[in-house]
């Protein structure tokens, strides 16, 4: 059996978000005055980037959910994973 991993899509989205977060943290740490810049609609970068990070996290989660639904749901009942649904009592009694 292969090592249990997250999907390739998951990792791609993860790296994307990691870079975005890193950008925010680095600006705050090394060029804090840039956070006062108002690039759009009279709002400063701190607000736009901060809200952006929250909004994009939600968006990526939803994208991930939508794209993996069909592919992963097929394998949910896969016997190789063992009886995950309602494990028999004996399994839970044996200290591992």
């Amino acid at each position: 059996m292969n090592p249990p991993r997250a999907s390739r899509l998951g990792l791609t989205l993860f790296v994307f978000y990691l870079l975005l977060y890193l950008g925010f943290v680095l600006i705050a740490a090394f060029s804090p005055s840039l956070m006062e810049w108002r690039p759009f609609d009279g709002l400063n970068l701190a607000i736009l980037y901060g809200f952006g990070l929250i909004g994009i996290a939600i968006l990526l989660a939803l994208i991930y959910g939508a794209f993996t639904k069909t592919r992963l749901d097929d394998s949910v009942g896969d016997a190789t994973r063992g009886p995950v649904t309602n494990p028999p009592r004996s399994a839970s009694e044996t200290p591992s």
Partner: protein
Amino acid sequence: MMHDVSPMAVAIFFLFVGGTVGLSFRLGRNAKSSAGYFAAHGQIPWFVNGIAFAGDYLSAASFLGICGMIAAYGYDGFLYSIGYLAGWIVALFVIAEPMKRLGKFTFADALDSRFDSRGIKLAAGISTLAVSIFYLIPQMVGAGVLIQPLLGFPHWVGVLLVGVTVILIVVTAGMVSTTWVQFIKGSLLVIFSLILTILVLARGLSVPGGQSVPGVEGHSDLDRGAAWETIGPLSADEWSRTTQIDGRSILPDEDGWDRKRWVRLQSMPEGNASQQPGASPGGGGFTPFEVVTLDSSQVLLREAQAVTRRADGSELINGWVKGRGENQRLLRPVGHLSRLPEGQTSTGPLGPLEYLRVLQDSEVVLWGSHPIKHSDGSVTTIHYQRPTDGSRVLRPGEHPTFAGIRSGQTIDRIEFLSLMMALFCGTASLPHILIRYYTVKDESSARKSTIVGITSIGLFYVLTLYLGLGAMTSGALDVQDTNMAAPLLARSISPLLFAIISAIAFTTVLGTVSGLILASSGAVAHDLLAGFFGVRLSSDRQVRVAKLAAVVVGAIAILLGIAFQKMNVTFLVGWAFSIAASANLPALVMLLFWSGTTRQGIIASVIVGMSSSLIWILLSGDTYQKVYGWPAEDAWPPFSQPGIVTIPLSFVTLVIVSWLTKTRGETSGWSAAE
């Protein structure tokens, strides 16, 4: 600050808590076996589990601590919101599904899935206990903070009440009721925060007393602090000679007071009471003012508040005995705007983005504090006004912890990066979050509930910014306690809302504490006792041991909650995240992504990550200053947040130890392990 106790608030509060405990008793009947106690039989629907994630995660720290920090310093509190949410991305994309696939009841199960090693169970069990206890402290502190204004009990009663209630919940029911309690709380928290935010936006922004001084243009900006008195500007020359202002004599510089910075105007006692016990010489108290030097020739006196804590622990407010009676004083609530853009006095309802735009161009009065030590051992803390541009409030760097990023010193920048890194890596390593992956039936449900969790938590964090900023300008804040910002904001709108918000916040504490105690009891009964010591217990006995462990951990949490009363809860949570991220994340990630990981590598990584971050925190400047009361400069680590050093250290340890132990015939392939 002292608060009035309203019977309605008390009634609503007990309704909530009673309902929660009642629910837990009802659901608890189904949780007799260990599968039921630790993992709710894996039968929780994914949507419920997702909201329960939010309930677990949006703890007292998120709700009280972040709102309080935003209310006191602006954007800096929001940095925590951003970091906490970003951590969920790690949980969703990297940890969620493998975690569900590998484990059964606890985080140690997952780490140990390939090896069946007692050492791993021991290390993971201990790290679960360490993180849980550190995370428990701020929750308990939050409970004490809430109970005081709501029911009028002292801090320790609040902590005790939470401790006992939670032990009751955990012991009677385990994961089933903990989950449902979290679901209800998570929903209520998000819904009522939304309502509160809408009310804040509908109230808009206003300058108090703005209308009452029309036409006064000269020094209007500073004068509009309305209820707060401003004297001057006075010429510096005149100021240096004057001994009396408006018939109030200036109390002499003595015992630590220095007229260059602070000055006291005498205020006479009411009625015919003469000398108050402990009051300043001459009877009565005083009104403290900050002496603001405008330029070399002019000074301005701006009203402040002074709290003197005497050696016996009693407090004087502005030199008066603390209380409501004649010749007694209480601290006044604070939080107002001193200027709106274009000289407006009130904006009326604002849209969410407009609210931020207007605030950005306004001036807000924040509060600073300054201690004055006296010869008899008492200490006066002066709380003074700090008029601050809105543009500074809406950018990072006002809070002392974050101010370093503007100091230009590399070490302060590294500390900031370290904190943001710990928040990012910490979420996916918190034991009470990880055990929630075992309450759903499969990986798909684990993923879906994480998505529901992220969505509701993200929405909530956006709301925290408005709640914090709303509180900042509500005129209801307590200068001594930032943790109360959100409930006090609610009270400035309506007493009913205050009761509901406080009750929700309190039940939030209950839920999070239950989750943590459950995780700890699982670590003791399942990982340590059964896993490490090999004690063979029947399912029933294992549950009984876990319940006993819950009582012990609960008792420890109560004691620590009382000991750490004075600290901002968000700050404390930062520590728990650092320890979790250093101890758990490297092992978890490497196990999933590197087939060369060995048993010894995992054990070493958990132990090194946990002990290095723990030692770093215990020796840090913040702990020296705020916990032991020693000077921060004596501390050994160069900065207080350990993450940036200890997380990589834990990774490196794992890789090196794995390389060294690989040749001894340790199974490295997956095929052999399963």
